[in-house]
Every structure is written in structure tokens, then in C-alpha cells.
């Protein structure tokens, strides 16, 4: 760089040439195109249809030691609910065996004196519930559903007896932005961020490492090409590919999965472009540091997909993590993009959310691209 070599042709021409070279390489080995277009479609299809936190038809064992009208009414209340598919077990021992075999997830047990205690004024009849606690989250939801079924039975029963049936305090919950709590509406936008992190980083993680391995980077360095031109020449074709994949994913989210989109399209395009730059920049940085395709791909897997899945707030709530870990999540760019996507899709343009998260992504993108530039120059000198 230091020697003032005579330049042939303008910078734009050289960059155009580089972009063309990189584009040709992409077209000849179709695996990059597959990464950009096939991967998001396949992943969104599998996850969009496959991943759901809304439990339905939870298998339930129903045991009444002394079956009567009351127990039949309670059974009907569970049977009517779409949350359960109850099966009547002859006794508690059978129901326990079903729970151990994973044939049912929970047992509802009415002891033999249930009806007697129910009709005695000063006594409360205990309804025994046993849930399989291995999947703690599902177990908690199952408990809540059982409680709701029991509550509706109790209300019907007291109303039929002509008494008022209310609890002292009644909770009226209103859920904004996603009133039915459809988990798909929040999982699909989150998935776009997770998938694009992966794709953006994968696209670029291998390109520089491959050139190092084959020794073609040194060859490129002795040409009049400058480092900025080289980086831009590498980034532009993959940026175009990545935006194509992003557009495809958003289109699928809106038209295939029917996720409502309340925000502005131009904000989505702008923030997506910025997010893609953070992912591409990270991939580029990895490939410059690793210099070998094996190490680059392993680092890309470890530092992109898994953090975007676990540390971005996609499934696990960031606010509930320990403090040191919450600080670590600030480095995960998917964290910001997921918040932006959730807000744009489900709530609309909320400036107080969009600004800080966009600026954070800008900082990460600038950091990785500047770091790549420094690193590549250093490693040559």
C-alpha cells in the first residue's frame, strides 16, 4: 500500500471487476445460492409449522374413586376443552403407570370422599392433580389449563345451585398486540432474525478463509486493488444475495404464515439491511481471523446460530438471565433485530423501540467491518 504504484483504471472499475469475479464464483458453485435462498425457505417451513408453544389435546388421566354425577360433570368440563384429551383410568395405580409410560402428562384424581366433602358446607373437597414436571414450562401451562377447567366446572355448579359464584378478586387480562397468544406470530419474526444471522455469517465466513487456504488472496494483494475495494467487492454480492433471502423470508411470514405486519415497509428494509451488514461483517471477520475453512465454519456455527437462538430473547427471556449474561447479550445483534421485528410486525412503528436498537446494530456493523479492515492489513505487513 505504501509504494505509490501507478494506478491503472479507476477504483470503481477495479471494484466492478472484483464484484463480477465474486458473483461468477457464486454462480459457479451453487452452494452459496442454496445458502441464501434454499436454507431460509426450508427452515421457515419446518419451524413455522413445527415449532409451537401452544399445547393442545394434552393427554390426561381422569380417575374417580367413586364415579357419580359430580365426577361426570367435571370430566365433561375437561372433555369440552380443546386443551385436553382426557382418558378415564379405572384406578390411581393404572393412571400412575400411564404417567410413567408417558401415555399421559397429568393425572386428575377425585378421592372417594370427594362428593361427600363437596356437599358439606364447611369443608373443601380436594382435587388431586399430578403433573409430569420434566418439561417444567409445559407442566406449568398444564396446571393452569387444569385450573381453568376446574374453575369453569365450579362456576357452573354454584350457578346451577342458585348461588353467586364469584371469587373475591377476579383478574381480567387483556393481552395487547397478540390477543390470542398465537405463538406463531412471535416465533416466525424471531426465526427470521435467527436464520438470517446464520445465513449472513455463513455466506462470508468461508470466502476469505478459502482464499487464504488456496493462496489466492496474496495473489490479489499484489494487484493494484486496495483493501477497501477488496472488502466492498466481497461484501456487495453477498449483501445482494442476503437481501434476496430476507425478502423471501418476510414474504413467507406475511403471506404464508399470516403474521400481521403493522409497521412501515421502508423501516423494515432499512433495518434489515443494517442487520444483514452486522451478520456479513461478523462472517468476514471470522474468515479473516481463522484463515482456514474448518476453523472458520466451526466458529461461525458456535458464534452465530446458537447465540442467536439462545441469547437473543427469541425463546428465553433476557430479563430473567443473570446480570453478567444479560451484558453478554448486548453483543448479539439478533437481540436488537428481534425486538425491531416483533415491534414492526405486531405493534407498528414505535420510535422509542426502533431508534436505540437500530443504533446498536449500526455500531456492531461498523465495528466488525472496521475490525476486518484492520486485521487484514495487519496480517499482510
Amino acid at each position, binding site marked *: 500500500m505504501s509504494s505509490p504504484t501507478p494506478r491503472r483504471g479507476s477504483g470503481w472499475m477495479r471494484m466492478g471487476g472484483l464484484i463480477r469475479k465474486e458473483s461468477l464464483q457464486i454462480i459457479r*458453485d451453487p*452452494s*452459496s445460492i*442454496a445458502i441464501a435462498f434454499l436454507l431460509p425457505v426450508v427452515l421457515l417451513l*419446518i*419451524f413455522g*409449522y*413445527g415449532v*409451537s*408453544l401452544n*399445547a393442545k389435546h394434552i393427554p390426561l388421566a381422569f380417575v374417580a374413586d367413586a364415579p357419580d354425577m359430580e365426577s361426570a360433570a367435571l370430566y365433561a368440563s375437561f372433555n369440552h376443552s380443546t386443551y385436553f384429551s382426557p382418558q378415564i383410568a379405572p384406578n390411581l395405580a393404572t393412571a400412575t403407570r400411564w404417567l*410413567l409410560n408417558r401415555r399421559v402428562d397429568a393425572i386428575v384424581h377425585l378421592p372417594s370422599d370427594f362428593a361427600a366433602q*363437596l356437599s358439606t*358446607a364447611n369443608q373443601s373437597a380436594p*382435587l388431586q*392433580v399430578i*403433573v*409430569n*414436571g*420434566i*418439561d*417444567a*414450562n409445559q407442566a406449568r401451562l398444564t*396446571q*393452569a389449563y387444569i*385450573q381453568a377447567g376446574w374453575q369453569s366446572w*365450579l362456576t357452573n355448579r354454584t350457578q346451577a345451585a342458585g348461588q353467586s359464584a364469584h371469587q*373475591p*378478586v*377476579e*383478574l*381480567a387480562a387483556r*393481552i*395487547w*398486540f397478540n390477543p390470542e*397468544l398465537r*405463538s406463531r406470530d*412471535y416465533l416466525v419474526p424471531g426465526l427470521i432474525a435467527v436464520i438470517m444471522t*446464520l445465513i449472513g455469517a*455463513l455466506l462470508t465466513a*468461508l470466502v476469505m478463509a*478459502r482464499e487464504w487456504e488456496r493462496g489466492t488472496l496474496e495473489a490479489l494483494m499484489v494487484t493494484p486493488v486496495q483493501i477497501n475495494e477488496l472488502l466492498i467487492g466481497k461484501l456487495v454480492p453477498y449483501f445482494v444475495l442476503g437481501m434476496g433471502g430476507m425478502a423471501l423470508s418476510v414474504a413467507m411470514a406475511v403471506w404464508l404464515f399470516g403474521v400481521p405486519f403493522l409497521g412501515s415497509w421502508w423501516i423494515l428494509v432499512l433495518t434489515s439491511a443494517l442487520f444483514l451488514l452486522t451478520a456479513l461483517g461478523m462472517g468476514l471477520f471470522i474468515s479473516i481471523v481463522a484463515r482456514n*475453512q*474448518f*476453523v472458520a*465454519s*466451526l466458529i461461525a*456455527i*458456535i458464534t452465530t446460530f*446458537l447465540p442467536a437462538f*439462545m*441469547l437473543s430473547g427469541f425463546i*428465553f*427471556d433476557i430479563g*430473567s438471565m443473570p446480570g453478567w449474561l444479560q451484558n*453478554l447479550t448486548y453483543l448479539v445483534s439478533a437481540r436488537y433485530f428481534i425486538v425491531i421485528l*416483533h415491534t414492526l410486525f405486531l*405493534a407498528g412503528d*414505535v420510535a422509542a*423501540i426502533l431508534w436505540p436498537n437500530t443504533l446498536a446494530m449500526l455500531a456492531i456493523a461498523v465495528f466488525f467491518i472496521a475490525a476486518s479492515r484492520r486485521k487484514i492489513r495487519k496480517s499482510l505487513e
Partner: protein
Amino acid sequence: MWQRIIALAIKEFQALLRDPKSRFVIVGPPLIQLLVFSFAATFDLSNIPIAVYNQDGGQAAQALVARFEGSGHFKSVANIQRESEISRVIDDQKALMVLNIGPRFEADLLSNQPATVQLIIDGRNSNTAAIALSYANTLVADFNTQWQTSHPLRAPPSVIVTRAWFNPNLESRWFIVPGIVAILMLVVVMVVTALSVAREREQGTFDQLLVTPLHPVEILIGKAIPGFVIGFTEGSIIIFLAVKAFAVPFEGHLLTLYIGMGLFLLSAIGIGLMISALATTLQQAVLGVFLFLVPAIILSGFATPIANMPPFVQDLTLINPMRYFMIILRGIFLEGSSFQSLQNQFWPLALIGIVTLAAAGWLFRHRMN
């Protein structure tokens, strides 16, 4: 024969561990990730930010608010004075929910009218919203029980007594950490095996290997050994840490666990070698690894239950070795499952392993270009 296989396995280890960078990426990150993800991956919420709009201000209303704040799940971040502030607090995600206590709360309570409390929840993250709502329901139910016992009303006709088996406090970490063990083992083994043949293909040394006296079966075994050794070593370390550092109970037998691990490694190595044999360049092998790895993790029942998936996706999970290994790990850790009760998880793993290894061996020979 064994001499040749061992020589090949040693060469594989050298290729893998010679470079200090690749030595580090095989050993370091899985351990760091175990630490990070085990703390991150929990569905138990704490410090959920709530805003309180207390229009009543009486004793009963304060007692209800105190119950929310004292539960450990909620943290009050704002007191709202006007109705119009609610939407700002929720829109800007200053608070996940607003607890709106009406001006007649205590009067209704004392006159035995239903005292309604409104809860406004940000549903953008529907899972967090559902969990927070269930916490709130429990707190209000507790409040009601206490109110009914301290105020001479009639006893409720029925009560629910709940017990959770295998995980009495419903700690989701017990459920998640065994799952992380499976994920980390899969990632390491896939990377080690899937890239091994593809790298040799790209460098042209695989053709040389094929013209040596080594039989394809011997090549297959030689390529599989590093995966086994690394998988078993890392798996053991990770499991040791899961039990010692994260206090996940270990109820079952170590031997049953190692049988399960061996069969799981067999199937993972089979798939890895098959991807490796199909790919002509390293980049294609990496793509193949991803195309397998990501669905294998998400459709394993790790974070979202398989039972919630539509039937055709449930059928698809039958070819996913992670599905079986998740059940094995959680069964042995939490339930103390015996060898017999896990049989139906063992044989599919063995079958997947045999089929994929046979396919890989066949592809070694027949995919020349």
C-alpha cells in the same frame, strides 16, 4: 487389518489436532457454551417489569400489589397516574404488564361484589406473556384464598392440590441442561466427522486413500474413531459439569447413559460421514451440516414439545436421532429410567447409525468424480 485402521485413526487425530486453532475450537467453545446457555436457557421468569396503576390506594389494594412485588417474579418499575400512560409504558416496553386496580376495588371486596383487577400484557412475546399471566393468576388465587380465610365467608366448595413429579419445583433448568448436553455433543461430532472426508476430497488426498490397500470399511472405521473418542470425552466432561456445577439430579445408571451415548454417537457419526461423502467441497459439507443440524436441534423437543407439532412434522422427527437422545438423557437424569424402559429409544438410534454408516461406506466407493 486393525493395524491399518489404527494408523488411519492416528492420522485423522493428527490432522484434527495439529493446528492449535482447531484444537481450541473443538475443546473450548462447548464448555463455554455449556456455562453460558445453561444460565440463559430458562423459562422461569424473574424480575418481570410491571407498572402499577393503583386507583384505589386502600389497604387491600396495597396488599395485592405487595404480593406481586414480593413474589420474586415481578419488579415494579413505575407507578402510573393516568389511564393514558398505560399505552406508552407498554408500547415502549418499559413494562411487560400494567396492573390496573380500579377505584372501587376495596369497596367491592368488602361488599362481597366481584372486585375486578385489570391486567394489560404486552403480547409481542407470547410465551413470556403466557408465563407472566400464569404467575399473576396464581398470585391472585393465593390472595383470594387468604381473603376468604381471614374474612368469615363460607369455605370454597373445592380446592386443587397439585404435585409435580420428577421436578417438584418445576425448575426448567433441570429440563434444559440435559438438552444442552445433547446439542453440544451433536455439534462437535458433526463438525469433526462431516468435514473430514470433504476436506480430503477438496485437497485430492481422498483418491490416494482409495487406491491404498485399505478397504472402504476400514476407511469408514478409521474416520469414525476420532468422532467417537472426541464425542465420549466431551460428553463425559459436559455431563460431569451438568451434575456438579448445575446441580441437575442424576437418578439413573451411568452404564445405561453410556450405552445411550454410544448409540447416539453412532448415528451422529453415520450422518456426518454421509454428508461428508456426498459433498465435493468443504463449503458444501458445511452447508450440509447446517441443513441437518438446525432442524435436528429445533425438532428434537429441546425447547418446544414434539407433541405440539402437526402430525407430519411429528412423523419427520422419527428420523431425528436427537429426539431419542433427548428422551434418554432426561429419562436417566430426572426419572432414573432403566435400560428396559428406554429400549424403544435405543433401537431406532442403532438403526439410524447402521443405515447411515452403510450409505456412507457405499458412497465412498461410488462417488468419484
